[in-house]
């Protein structure tokens, strides 16, 4: 009977969930050296009711367990909900000789914005990779596809897996590290990003031989470090940061040098180096901090870049988005006329939103939401009702909270500003 089968599946699922919860509770007791009673006390439950029959705990128990384990809440949920591993692997039809084809097809699918297929192909390539470098390279292209699809969490996971592999060739290991630094920056982990990027730069500069992958790693590492230093500089009281602003700008210039060298080589056209199209505009932000004479020019140039026509070429939309980031920060630091500042921020916010919506780039979406939140608060302070959230913005809020951990501590203020305005209508 079908109902019996469904009941059986449900019972098995509940049994697995209970087993997982018991495992984590045992681990927490081991970690803390606690008795069952102590664990129950810490989790706010009676000792006999630590595991619900369904295996699906209430959220407060998950939070308590995460605290007891010193794990992020996400890791506890991941363990409780991950699929069972005793499934038989799918029949493997690929051979080691198919690696290059799968690898290149994955890259092509990413360019065509078919990210799900790009990821599937990268996973298949990894499954047949017969050297450590091939495995790392497959993780790298998988992370690239995850990042492009807006899943930074998965992108970081892939890169961390890649850098843990023993025996990877130096150029690919450094490239994976450099991209890790870049994604960590996008997620708001600037301390780690600076450290990882610095290691790559030091190592790459100490190597006598040169090749394109190494050059790319060096360029991406300079790009990530320049950004991480740039975003560390506060918008107010930045005088003490002039030295770091100069260092940040220098890293952008070195990223530009690497990109220029690569641009002359086959296989490294604009499609692979979209970041290269944005270096000159983002470098204007730190330059304005340490060079008083560059400030007015920076604002003017950035406004012009955002207003330029055309967004279809690779890199143009991204260039406008980076220009918007630089413009918003520079304007907040130096513009004194409130009307002019408001106009400039509106322009930046719109450009960021356009790029974020088109590409699922949560870094830019985060910047847009920050500007939008400031604008909404200002409207409310002036006694005006702010516009209700639309469906697109709701997805941006969800994407930012999901993919940028640093934004989660602001979730309450985002919800206050947005979620309650339209939601809940029946």
């Amino acid at each position, binding site marked *: 009977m079908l109902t019996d089968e469904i009941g059986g599946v449900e019972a098995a699922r509940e049994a697995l969930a209970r087993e997982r919860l018991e*495992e984590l509770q045992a*681990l927490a007791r*081991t*970690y803390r*050296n606690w008795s069952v009673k102590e664990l129950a006390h810490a989790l706010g439950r009676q000792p006999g009711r630590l595991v619900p029959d369904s295996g*699906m705990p*209430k*959220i*407060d128990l*998950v*939070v308590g367990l995460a605290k007891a*384990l*010193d*794990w*992020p809440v*996400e*890791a*506890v*949920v*991941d*363990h*409780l*909900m991950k699929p069972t591993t005793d499934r038989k692997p799918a029949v493997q039809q690929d051979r080691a000789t198919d690696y*290059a084809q799968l*690898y290149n097809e994955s890259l092509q699918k990413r360019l065509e914005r078919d990210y799900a297929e790009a990821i599937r192909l990268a996973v298949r390539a990894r499954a047949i*990779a017969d*050297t*450590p470098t091939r495995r790392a*390279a497959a993780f790298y292209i998988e992370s690239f596809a995850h990042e492009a699809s807006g899943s930074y*969490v998965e992108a970081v996971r892939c890169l961390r897996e890649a850098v*843990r*592999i023993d*025996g*990877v060739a*130096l150029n690919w290991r450094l490239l994976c590290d450099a991209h890790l630094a870049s994604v960590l920056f996008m997620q*708001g982990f600037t*301390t780690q990003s*600076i*450290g990882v990027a*610095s*290691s790559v730069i030091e190592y790459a500069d100490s190597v006598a031989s040169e090749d394109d*992958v190494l050059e790319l790693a060096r360029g991406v590492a300079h790009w990530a470090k320049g950004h991480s230093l740039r975003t560390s500089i*506060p918008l107010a*009281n930045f005088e003490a940061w002039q030295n770091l602003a100069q260092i940040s700008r220098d890293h952008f210039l070195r990223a530009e040098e690497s990109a220029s060298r690569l641009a002359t080589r086959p296989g490294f056209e604009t499609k692979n180096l979209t970041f290269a199209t944005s270096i000159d505009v983002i470098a204007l932000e730190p330059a304005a901090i340490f060079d008083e004479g560059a400030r007015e020019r920076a604002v003017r140039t950035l406004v012009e870049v955002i207003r330029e026509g055309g967004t279809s070429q690779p890199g143009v939309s991204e260039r406008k988005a980076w220009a918007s980031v630089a413009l918003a920060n520079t304007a907040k630091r130096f513009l004194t006329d409130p009307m002019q500042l408001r106009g400039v921020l509106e322009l930046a916010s719109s450009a960021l939103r356009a790029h974020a919506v088109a590409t699922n780039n949560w870094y830019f979406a985060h910047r847009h939401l920050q500007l939008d939140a400031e604008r909404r608060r200002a409207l409310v302070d002036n006694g005006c009702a702010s516009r209700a959230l*639309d*469906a697109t913005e*709701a*997805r941006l809020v*969800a994407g930012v*909270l*999901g993919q940028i*951990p640093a934004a*989660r501590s602001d*979730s*309450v203020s985002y*919800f206050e500003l947005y979620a309650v305005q339209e*939601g*809940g*209508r*029946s």
Partner: protein
Amino acid sequence: MSTPEATWATDAIGASRVLRDGLVHRTRELFALMVTARGGSARAASSEIAVDPRSIQDMRTVPSMELVTRVGSGLGLEPHIAVGVVASSPLERTDPAEIRRILAAADLADDSARVAAAAVELALAAAQPCDLALAQLAEARACVGRGELDRAETHARLAREIGISPSDRVLAGGLAEAAAFDATLGSPWIAGSRELCALEWIDEACRGAEQLDEPVCIAQRRAAYRLARSLASGTLAPRAAAALVEDSLAGPPAASAWTASSIALAALSLIARGGHGHEHTRAMTHLFVTAQLALEELASGLDGSTRSTIESRLSRMAFAEWSLRARLDGLTPECIDERDAQEIVRASMRLDGGDPWRHCSPGHLARSLRSTLDASSGDGSMVEQVHFPRASGARMESRSEDPC
């Protein structure tokens, strides 16, 4: 007047009410966001994710994980991310001064996970370049704990280049001193442990702070490190070191923890380096065991943060001991019982800075250890590779390669 227990219970109930209200509130708001993202009709959106909208609107108790993950799925969020959003606390962001206090406490508790978390928070809240420098130094301390010495050196050099504020000298000196000690003697599982120039430099530069208003515990830890270094350099005999360990137990428990554990770790480092005679190894082993037993006894009579510090130090010692046994003795399945496995799990969880995906459960680990040993040649190298992987970091080939 209420008793401390009653106050604690009241606080706990209050905290749990705040937690519950926050979880309910954020689940409702995540639902509202989902409704907006899906066109604005709560009924239609609820139907698509198979949730009764009344269960959200009339929610009185904490939602289940399943409900939150369903709401998150309506926004395209994976289960762990949806729960992470609902569970995130708005009170986490603190000012740099408060983060410094948290960092100092984590350093003195030898808590790598909290040190690393404080480094992230400090960088996010940085108001001055010195905040960033301190964050880099804290990250260096956390990296040493994980055996990532090259990266630790990079972070320390960045801290030095950005510049440590004179007002941070005590905290920075403590972090650099602890990291420098761990890079040489405090983490015997690290292959190629060595002095890290930038850390030593910061340590030296901050030494003037000894004359300032330095907390007693920092001075006690420095004294412990000096004794351990004396043992390592041969100016302190093992027998005299054992006597010092026993004498230290009469003093403040935190100071005892640092003295006994630092000497024990130095002893194990000397065994790990090899090149000494059988008698010397026996004396060092005896010293280690003496310190371990003394600390276990000390911990059993304590509570609170001091106990936590002692347990951290005991975990570090256990991690060091098991990695050395795996390397030198060639472990066999019979060597590892459930209790040993639990000790290894506890130690590696503390020292990995809370990398959770590596561990499953003590039972699983014990089984994993056994199967690993069965599959290996019996020299223990596989155990080391599987269970102490962060200690050395992934090896990199020195040549370039084209995967295609």
